[in-house]
């Protein structure tokens, strides 16, 4: 397990190293493909950071779901719960949010919006409850169950946009747009940046505080470090701690889904997530599971996605190449993280 409190500087180096390595390999790929890497890099940087609008309306907006799902993953992983199903929990949250946003038209915004977000988080937690109970009661490994629950959520999304939540004409597999009062207001007027970014930062600070300052956070970290030691030496009942890790993680991922529906798409579609819940694992690992670092690594991935889209538009680089760059970054993260751990283990004489 990475111990972020001690290696925060290490996390920064891993990030920088990942970016540098990816950049070098990506440039090579581009040259092989017959594209100008400088033009591509210019387009990518311009698209991600080129103007206040690019940063606020594109990069930050793209980071928000990664921040929240990254927090969800970090929350679970720190307690030794390998929840790799943030994707499904996010979709459960998105479905709940779309439902509230559609049926709650008559409600005032001050009631509707908090209700939407709360129900999204609740739905995400509910989606995590099934693998949680299977783990705690039956000892079934959560890596399989959380992943399988994601497939169920994907199919459920496809069903609801064709069935109970389909737009009223019954023509297109999507929902009608949610009520105006159910939408997250813009944080900076004139940009697409919505209030969700504040939610993400508050959530990150809250999780960081929970880990560092509370008994529950200590127990979660103890169980995550070694469940046996926590049980034997620390006299910690691991069951409830594990349950909290599952539910908290699911709620954060569900909130991410709610924030996307209320802040970005205003409707639910089939194939709703490009894999935010999976990218979140890389986001959390790159941040060494530190909640505050998750904000930074999510921003990095958001900038990368924004840059990839701009590369397509402004430098004519095909979409598949942009996806390849993202895959490269994830590989670079995993490799560098492993190297760092090995170096640490060596110096500590473990």
């Amino acid at each position: 397990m990475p111990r972020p409190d001690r290696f925060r500087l290490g996390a920064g180096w891993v990030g920088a190293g990942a970016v540098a390595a990816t950049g070098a390999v990506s440039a090579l790929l581009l040259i092989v493909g017959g594209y100008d890497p400088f033009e591509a890099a210019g387009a990518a940087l311009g698209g991600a950071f080129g103007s206040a609008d690019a940063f606020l309306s594109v990069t930050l907006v793209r980071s928000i779901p990664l921040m929240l799902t990254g927090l969800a993953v970090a929350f679970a992983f720190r307690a030794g719960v390998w929840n790799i199903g943030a994707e499904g929990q996010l979709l459960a949250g998105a479905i709940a949010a779309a439902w509230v946003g559609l049926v709650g038209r008559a409600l005032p915004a001050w009631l509707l919006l908090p209700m939407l977000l709360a129900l999204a988080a609740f739905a995400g937690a509910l989606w995590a409850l099934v693998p949680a109970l299977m783990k705690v009661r039956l000892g079934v490994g959560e890596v399989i169950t959380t992943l399988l629950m994601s497939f169920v959520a994907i199919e459920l999304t496809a069903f609801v946009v064709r069935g109970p939540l389909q737009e009223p004409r019954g023509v297109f597999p999507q929902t009608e747009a949610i009520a105006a009062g159910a939408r997250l207001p813009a944080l900076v007027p004139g940009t697409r940046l919505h209030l969700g970014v504040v939610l993400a930062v508050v959530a990150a600070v809250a999780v960081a505080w929970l880990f560092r300052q509370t008994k529950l956070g200590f127990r979660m970290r103890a169980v995550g470090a070694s469940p046996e030691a926590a049980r034997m030496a620390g006299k910690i009942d691991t069951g409830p701690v594990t349950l909290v890790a599952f539910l908290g993680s699911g709620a954060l991922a569900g909130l991410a889904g709610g924030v996307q529906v209320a802040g970005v798409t205003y409707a639910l579609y089939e194939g709703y997530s490009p894999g935010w819940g999976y990218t979140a694992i890389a986001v959390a690992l790159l941040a060494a599971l530190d909640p505050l670092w998750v904000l930074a690594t999510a921003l990095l991935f958001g900038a990368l996605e924004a840059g990839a889209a701009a590369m397509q538009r402004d430098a004519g680089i095909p979409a598949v190449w942009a996806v390849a760059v993202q895959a490269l970054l994830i590989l670079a993260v995993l490799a560098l993280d492993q190297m760092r751990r090995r170096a640490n283990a060596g110096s500590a004489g473990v």
Partner: protein
Amino acid sequence: MGSLLRTSLLGLALAFAACGGDAGPGEGDAPLRVALLTAGPVSDAGWYAGAYEGLLAIRDSLGAEVSHQQTRTPAEFDEAFLAYGSSGYDLVFAHGFEYQDAAMRAGEQFPATTIVVSGGGRVAANVIPFIFELEEGSYLAGMLAAGMSESGTIGMVGGVEIPPVQGTFRAFEAGARAVDPDVEILEAFTGNWDDVAAAKEAAAAQLARGADVIIHNVDAASFGVFQAVREVVGMGRTAWALGMNRDQNDVAPDVILGSAVIRIPEAFLEVALALQARGLGGEPIYEGASEGVVDFVLNPALSSRVPPDLVGSMDAARERIRSGELAVPRVPFVETESGIR
């Protein structure tokens, strides 16, 4: 109505293109800026590839500055429209119904940008549904299917049961019944566009029930349909498949009798020309057989197997569709048609 104008504009554009690069159109003016959004890869050799070819045709014929982005999810739609709208693109092709809500939002925000939504259902002054009347090609396919069937049973394998797909099947039925009123027609949907195995199973089930001509509308999964037909042909039966959306005759030239096609690149070029010439004017654009965009093309390798009088009656039907004399059934889905706004 506008087909003569369109044809002459098309000729004009090709003449321009033939003049060579230095005589670029709109000298002195800024070049037309045209963007394309697709929700899938332009390497699909079908729906998206046609759109990309259309974009390149606009670039080559009109000297337009072009750009393409493949969006992966709805969260990216607003961002892409923002990028193109704020940098002053004149025309954005959003190649799929899923873009329609974001297109309406962007249309309001960027009045100088015209957004054309393929298969869209919502209309605004600068947000225009772009409807391909593939039914007209599918009607001709139905005639061929009924005319070629020896068992009197034919089949249809669809992907997702959305109106454009239902429309092609209703027209296929009408065409088949026009040739053989007693023909039995089977219908199955796989629920998606890319499950080759499911499409193959659905086609195999229809073949087992006696169908001997099968049409599809399952996009990338169509290979499964062709494969199922190939397998029964390999076992000594006579059976045929029909292609859809693009000319698929070369995909399985041994079993595909012909394809109902949309000539997407030509349609895209026409829209860009119309925008330059007179604007698009807030009305849905329909492209069908009378515009030459939708058609049915026989597979030259197998056309000798089709009786000449069947070909003759299909040609006659094509002319009657083009002249408006023969109305092919259509499932309406644009809000101005269905009366729901």
